[in-house]
């Protein structure tokens, strides 16, 4: 059957991709345009059918891909790096600095990496759509919601399946737009609209980096599609400039200027120290900026927690399972570029570790259930960055996969809880506050069990998915070390930054600490929500204050008596519980795709994902990047950077895996243990005591390290100051002088021209005649022009042609030979010049009117060609 499929859709022209992309787009258009006309059942059907068919097409494509890469050949057969590609059309063509034309096509491809991603997006996306049909049931913007949601899936698929950076960028912007629209979905509330704007701005900052990276990639590699970039990635660190030196990106001095001045005893000559980075580092840092924006890492993570203002299914789909992992996806996709620069890899890992830790500390004390999950998402994304930053791309991507399932399940579970709470409380903030919950186990059994499984998974309970992926990341972070491929090449003159040896263990330690906190805050969240007694009986407000957008679903609409218990919270309908059950099952089991050590030991489990993704990252790991477990060599032999990794070292590394695994297991045990002790044994008393004892720390964490306030103070106020300065300059200089001057000139010329635009035909024709005469003057005057080209010691002079022109040359500077007649064919001459000499050459032309013109060319040949030393400055 798959053969038939591949016959209909050949590998190079796999137009089934059009269905994958087209269905969500169709859904978006139908729901967006005809949403009001087809009614709620129509919208529901359209949205579900669009994503469902798209998912089905994804599964078929995946099976076809499986065939193409040759996965049928058994566990140890080497897979090939194949892809299914489809070119929709040629979009435009860009020109490189060398003048070559780069066609930019609307081209999509499915390979091992994007294949898994698209399955997750459409699969999890379908479940969340199903969930949302019930969750958003009573919302007046039902059709609008699903139009946005379908559009999001479409954009995300464009992002994933795009075969080059510009197409990815279209998707990248598209998901950003949908995210903005959905965060501000209930835009009537000021807070939500502001959150939407915040997300948009943070993402724009990141996008700026992505655009810069594209320009740099065109410069260095001359291509923008994945294959082309991979093929020429070596250019990023080997391209040389005209002087034969490494073509680097100069960071300082800005603009190549010289700032090192000496005024008496003030010596600023240190400002002349140059700082340059390789193309690989520049591209990597720009891409990383883009990734931090989209994947909510330091310093741009601030938008994600606020993004929880959107409806809960949106949080699950966009801000947990799919869009925010786009940054990790991009790092994996361009792994061969990142691997070129150990510095960038260290930045990726370092940023990931810091974000993981920071977000985990904030999550410890939050009371809003969605805020806890939001910070947990930021923290888990940090883990993914640790993984890819350590060169363990498979491990990082594996965490993307597991996280998609358990975090989606947690968010949807939280949505189910909020749904139940909201039915009683009719207040957005109070219904999300965990202090009002407790004991919900009894009322929401499905939600309880699925939430429990996912909490165990994210906390790293051994043998569940989160454990495997997190453990793999921590292990790799400890043993890996990125080594620049420059080490091999004869470019050692350019100082190469080397990752210090302590870097890996530090990443590991930070990771373990963050994992401990994860286990703690997730169980705190879980226990506060589902265990103990229900604390929300007497918290409630009359229904009419409830926001009109999120109606209570017709339950308990009457005015409650706030002193007596109202109706109990209730379980959600099947459209909401079925997705929860499916997601929880996957959250528990998906880890067995890549169970790491267990896979090595127990043969039938194997490490399927590792095997599957190997062709994608093979070149990065074994080829140009040589991103190998080199630290191991250091541990065994103490050698600095060996050329080869010995078998002995690899074995040593393998023996470390069980030991390092203990860190992950103990993190889970300690975190869960403390949470159990605090919130079950002692009923939350120690938490209150701690908060009372260290009120400063508690407040500090509760207020999220005051990062928002810091940004307000530093960034916003400096932007304000800059704006004020600019406005003042604008008023005085631009308005005062420039604008008045230009306005004067413009109105002056305008007046002149208007004076001519009299409406009198004589004037018009007179002006035409004057114009005609001006053109005539141009032709009447002779134009003696020539181009000078240097060919070694020779200078080649070529006279510019003209209508009826005749030429005569004076090549030795002694004056024209008056006897020599002008000739129409005497166009080109060669002049030889010795070093350090100067010569004057004259050209005389005569045009058709018999008018003559002379032009002088002074040719000077320099003493001897010296290479200009870059970065040295004579004082």
């Amino acid at each position, binding site marked *: 059957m798959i053969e038939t499929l591949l016959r209909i859709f050949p590998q190079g022209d796999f137009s089934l991709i059009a269905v994958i992309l087209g269905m969500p787009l169709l859904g978006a258009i139908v729901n967006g345009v005809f949403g009001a006309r087809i009614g709620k059942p129509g919208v529901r059907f359209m949205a579900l059918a669009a994503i469902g068919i798209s998912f089905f097409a994804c599964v078929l494509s995946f099976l076809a891909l499986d065939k193409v890469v040759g996965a049928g050949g058994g566990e140890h057969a080497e897979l090939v790096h194949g892809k299914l590609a489809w070119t929709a059309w040629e979009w435009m063509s860009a020109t490189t600095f060398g003048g070559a034309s780069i066609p930019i096509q609307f081209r999509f491809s499915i390979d091992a990496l994007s294949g898994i991603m698209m399955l997750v997006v459409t699969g999890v996306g379908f479940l969340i759509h199903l969930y949302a049909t019930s969750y958003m049931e009573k919302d007046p913007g039902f059709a609008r919601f699903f139009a946005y949601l379908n559009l999001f899936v479409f954009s995300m698929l464009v992002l994933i399946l795009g075969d080059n950076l510009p197409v990815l960028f279209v998707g990248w912007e598209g998901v950003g737009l949908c995210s903005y629209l959905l965060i501000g979905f209930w835009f009537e509330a000021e807070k939500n609209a502001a959150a939407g704007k915040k997300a948009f701005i943070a993402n724009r900052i990141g996008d700026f980096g992505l655009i810069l990276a594209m320009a740099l990639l065109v410069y260095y590699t001359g291509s923008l599609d994945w294959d082309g970039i991979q093929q020429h990635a070596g250019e990023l660190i080997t391209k040389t400039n005209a002087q034969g030196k490494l073509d680097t990106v100069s960071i300082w001095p800005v603009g190549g200027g010289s700032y090192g001045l000496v005024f008496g005893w003030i010596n600023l000559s240190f400002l002349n120290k140059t700082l340059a980075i390789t193309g690989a580092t520049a591209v990597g840092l720009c891409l990383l900026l883009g990734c931090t924006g989209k994947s909510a890492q330091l310093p741009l993570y601030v938008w994600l927690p606020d993004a929880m203002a959107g409806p809960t299914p949106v949080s699950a789909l966009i801000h947990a399972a799919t869009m925010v992992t786009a940054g990790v996806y991009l790092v994996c996709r361009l792994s061969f570029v990142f691997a070129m620069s150990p510095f960038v890899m260290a930045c990726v890992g370092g940023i990931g570790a810091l974000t993981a830790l920071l977000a985990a500390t904030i999550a410890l004390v939050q009371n809003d259930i969605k805020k806890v999950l939001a910070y947990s998402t930021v923290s888990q994304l940090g883990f993914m960055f640790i993984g890819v930053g350590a060169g363990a791309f498979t491990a990082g991507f594996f965490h993307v996969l597991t996280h998609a399932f358990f975090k989606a399940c947690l968010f949807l579970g939280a949505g189910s809880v909020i749904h139940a709470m909201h039915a009683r409380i009719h207040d957005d903030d109070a219904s999300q506050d965990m202090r009002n919950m407790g004991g919900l186990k009894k009322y929401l059994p499905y939600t309880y069990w699925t939430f429990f499984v996912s909490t165990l998974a994210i906390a790293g309970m051994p043998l569940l998915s989160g454990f495997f992926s997190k453990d793999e990341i921590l292990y790799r972070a400890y043993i890996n070390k990125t080594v620049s491929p420059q080490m091999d090449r004869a470019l050692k003159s350019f100082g190469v930054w080397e990752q210090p040896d302590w870097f890996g263990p530090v990443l590991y330690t930070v990771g373990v600490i963050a994992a401990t906190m994860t286990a703690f805050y997730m169980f705190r969240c879980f226990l506060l929500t589902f265990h103990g007694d229900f604390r929300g009986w007497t918290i409630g407000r009359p229904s009419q204050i409830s926001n009109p957008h999120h109606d209570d679903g017709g339950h308990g609409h009457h005015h409650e008596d706030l002193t007596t218990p109202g109706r109990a919270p209730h379980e959600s309908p099947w459209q909401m519980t079925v997705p929860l059950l499916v997601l929880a099952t996957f959250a528990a089991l998906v880890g067995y795709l890549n169970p790491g050590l267990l896979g090595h030991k127990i043969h039938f489990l194997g490490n399927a994902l590792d095997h599957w993704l190997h062709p994608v990252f093979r070149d990065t790991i074994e080829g140009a990047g040589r991103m190998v477990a080199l630290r191991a060599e250091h541990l065994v032999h103490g050698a600095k950077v060996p050329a080869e990794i010995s078998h002995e070292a690899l074995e040593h590394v393998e023996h470390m895996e069980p030991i390092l695994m203990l860190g992950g297991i103990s993190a889970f045990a300690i975190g869960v243990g403390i949470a159990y002790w605090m919130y079950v044994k002692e009923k939350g008393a120690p938490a209150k005591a701690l908060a009372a004892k260290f009120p400063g720390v508690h407040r500090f964490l509760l207020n999220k390290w005051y990062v928002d306030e810091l940004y307000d103070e530093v960034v916003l106020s400096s932007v304000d100051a800059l704006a004020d300065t600019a406005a003042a300059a604008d008023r005085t200089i631009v308005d005062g002088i420039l604008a008045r001057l230009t306005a004067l000139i413009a109105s002056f010329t305008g007046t002149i021209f208007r004076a001519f635009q009299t409406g009198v035909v004589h*004037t*018009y024709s007179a002006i035409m005649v004057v*114009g*005609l005469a001006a053109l005539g003057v141009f*032709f009447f005057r002779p134009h003696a022009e020539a181009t000078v080209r240097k060919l070694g010691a020779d200078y080649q002079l070529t006279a510019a042609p003209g*209508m009826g022109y005749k030429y005569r040359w004076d090549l030795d500077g002694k004056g024209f030979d008056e006897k020599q007649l002008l000739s129409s064919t005497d166009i080109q001459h060669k002049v030889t010049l010795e070093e350090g000499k100067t010569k004057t050459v004259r050209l005389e032309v005569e045009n058709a009117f018999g008018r003559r013109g002379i032009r002088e060319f002074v040719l000077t040949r320099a003493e001897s060609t010296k290479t200009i030393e870059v970065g040295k400055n004579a004082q």
Partner: protein
Amino acid sequence: MFLVLSPFIVLAVGALLLMLAEAFTGSERSLSVVGSIVLFATSACGLAVWLLGTDNVDLSVLAPWIILDRFSLFFNALLPFGAALVCLLSGGYLEEHRLQRGEFYQLIFFTTLGTMFLSAAGDGLTLLLGLETMSIGAYALTAFRRTSTRSVEGGLKYFLLGSFSAALLLFGLALLYGVTGHTDLAGLRDGLAHGGALSDPRVIFALLLVLSGLAFKVSAFPFHMWAPDAYEGAPTPATSLMASTVKAGGFAMAIRVLVTAFGDPASTSWASGWPPVVAWLAVLTITIGNLIAGRQDSVKRMLAYSSVVHAGYMLVGLAAFGAAKSAAIASILFYLVTYTVSTIGALGVLILAGSHGKEAVSYEDLAGIGKRHPALGLAFSFFLLSLAGIPPTAGFFGKWYLVKAILEGGMPLLGVITVLNSVLSAYYYLRVLVFMYMKEPAPGAPKAVPMRSGEVNAALVIAAVCVALLGLRPGATIDASEEAAKTLVQ
């Protein structure tokens, strides 16, 4: 033979039949729809011959008087397409403003036929024939609103100056005939290439005269002075015809004459040939056009100057011909396509925005209209953004390929001037958006009330689809323009 000539035949026969039908039935109601169908069919015939391939048909039936090649086929598809949109606009406009008379459509047909002949003319005589067929129609269209003095005045000016420029052109062609003994363009080329004809001063006079004649037709500075008066005075559909089809016909003529007869290295020399002259004309046209356009109070007059400015952009492309050869011509052809649909769209929305006695003319008339009539505001913004060259609209790619050709021709300064000017032009285009969305009409001030017309709506939808498609998927059109340019340049 009939196949190759089908665009001409369909249009000519269709026009005559419609004239008869109108005379006998006396009904003008469905003329615009039927007329646009005839014009669309003409365009489709051009497209069909194009797709059939030039190898499969006999192209030499009317050579050397009428040259049928990819270049003229390109225009045979483009020119009637623009005219068809104009025809639809006229249907709504004339009825709304009580100007419904059948001649209007006949004038559109014959003007278009003239432009088509112009684009295919391979001989000085057929060229003049086409030019006059086109111009007479355009004069009459300008003065169509007989009760309005502005309209009649604009038409008369256009007529007087147009005759003047046609005389210049004719004089230039006569001089060339005197020197070479040829009136056909290919013969002129050969005649100029041999026997030192280029060193004859008469040839240079002739080039000068031909250049100014061409510059008049494409309204380049300082031969543009008729344009604002004529564009503003004319009924708006006539304006849109002049800004699109007539202007494109002028460019077709200019390109063919200059490239065929004066395409040798000496004439296209960057030091002393016609490209530097065209470059000066272009730079002055753009800059001065932009300066004046920014100072207009009337949106219609602003669009008139904007049309002058766009002609300047295309002249920049023509100036790059000496160095960039077919790439320069291809970029102009593509620009013409994007410009045609964008400008017809913009003028079409301007038509739609006003109704009888409550026309939308000035910026003030449009205050707040974007809020009162969101669809109209959206459409206007879309076309104006395309004219300003903002992605992802058609106009962006037009400018992109134009600047690319200029840079490939090694003229960075011209490229910079073009880009800076297009930034400058954004001022007056966006000013419309400011008025539409951020201002409210002053109390008691006259407000423009949009008219209702299915025909105008249809034209706008077609134009908007074209603008969006050209912005998202310009590939096929670019390939076509390159092919058309290559047949001309070789």
